[in-house]
């Protein structure tokens, strides 16, 4: 397992958003987390990258990260594409990427920029443009490219297809498939389960903070309850 979440609990005040959830992501594997709004999916990812206080143990490549701050988790090789993109909206495309590669040495930063622009030629054309003035699809590309600057071993992606047209959704998934083929492990939270289940190896369903179902992605995709709730028959 490259990432193990062991009995993770997240609370906001008294409210329990994530209730003792455990899961593992194998090296190079693609794991999908589904569930209704408010199930605690984003909170789980935020716990994994250290943006919310949590109980339970998080290990990454065998190293206990539970007490590590977010920036160290990132530098160890965890890329995070947050829900709603959370770009540095007043910065240019290139500045966003440079922040993404903040922990990189100068040659690694150069390489990261080349990779990002190679993967997303649209961003190369717009490197001087202010992020907030870009289209939704371009912004999502930038959010991904920013997370990829450190050449992470694991990518956490939260609702990456949110607000995108079907064509752009297909493009974004094509990019994830390419990254996955290149060996990056993916832990994905996604409402668009139909598309995501085609690519993931395993899938989990959360509801009201708990894990209610887990299994191989193709089994989950055939599960009647899941089909009714998340895919639409």
């Amino acid at each position: 397992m490259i990432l193990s979440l062991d009995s993770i609990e997240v609370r906001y005040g008294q409210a329990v958003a994530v209730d003792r959830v455990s899961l593992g992501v194998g090296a190079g594997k693609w794991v999908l987390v589904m569930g209704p709004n408010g199930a605690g999916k984003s909170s789980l990812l935020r716990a994994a990258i250290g943006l919310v206080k949590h109980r339970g143990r998080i290990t990454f490549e065998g190293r206990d990260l539970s007490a590590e701050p977010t920036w160290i988790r990132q530098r160890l090789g965890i890329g995070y594409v947050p829900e709603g993109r959370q770009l540095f909206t007043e910065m240019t495309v290139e500045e966003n990427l440079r922040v993404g590669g903040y922990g990189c040495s100068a040659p690694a930063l150069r390489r990261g920029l080349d990779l990002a622009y190679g993967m997303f030629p649209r961003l190369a054309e717009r490197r001087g443009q202010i992020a907030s003035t870009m289209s939704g699809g371009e912004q999502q590309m930038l959010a991904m490219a920013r997370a990829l600057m450190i050449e992470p071993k694991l990518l956490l992606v939260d609702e990456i297809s949110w607000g995108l047209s079907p064509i752009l959704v297909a493009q974004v998934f094509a990019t994830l498939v390419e990254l996955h083929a290149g060996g990056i492990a993916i832990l994905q939270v996604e409402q668009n389960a139909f598309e995501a289940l085609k690519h993931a190896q395993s899938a989990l369903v959360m509801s009201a903070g708990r894990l209610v179902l887990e299994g191989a992605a193709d089994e989950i995709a055939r599960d009647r309850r899941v089909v009714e709730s998340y895919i639409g028959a």
Partner: protein
Amino acid sequence: MTFPLFLQLLTNGLVVGALLAIVALGVALIFGVVRVVNFAHGEFVTLGAFATYLVVTQLNISPLLGIPLAFVLGAAVGAGIQAAIVSRAAGRPELDVLMVTYALSIIGLGIFSSAFSGDFRSYSEGPSGIFTLGSVVIGLRSLTVLLVCLIVGVGTILVVQRTRIGLALRALAQSRDSAAACGINVPAAELFAFALAVGLAAAAGALVSLIGTIHPRVGHDLVLDAFVVVVLGGMGSIGGAVLAAIAIGIVNAFTSFALDDSWARILTYCLLYATLLLRPHGLLGRHVGA
């Protein structure tokens, strides 16, 4: 008003505005990056002023050397206070954090008053004489202040806009979570911002001691205007703060001459009120990210 007098007042206003800009840059930096309204900022100006006064009168060191010394002292004190006090209040309700910096201000005022009494002090060491440019007369000391403010101000803006740490500060000002998720050591960047801002305040204090009298409230009084400047400029906007500082300095100079200091203050705050009504996000009309 004659034209030479007009130029003279403009020059005087520019000197005060430049000082105000340096102080306001620090306030804006702390507000933008650390998300704290630093009520104690004026006390750091006073610290720089007294430190310079002491090294000049006790150690016979040139006040010009006092400026970098004050900066370094301020940066060290700022780093200490951020690490030991302000960072610990992080995450508490806003009012708690305000009370922390307010308490620091009161404590600072108390320390300066008991150590130096309320006397007005000044020294004559350092640049002296006047410099005439056509019909405008400017003291060499004022000229020094103007030049140093220019260098320090441009330097600070270059650090924020052009360096790696500056990139981190700007990222942090726009989105804390994203900055952290991009590998920025948030507490370290905050420490840097606080130390830099307090260093600037203390350096401004050194400059204040060069052109005016020093007393325990000298920084406190200056910072009131600096807060106005930061709000006028748009909280956290550096360009806006500089512009607003110069404007306030010049408005003050003309009003103090035509009416008196109280009217200068009244006008300053009317200007603030009008700006908030007409341009709620400051002169340059920029939002600060959540």
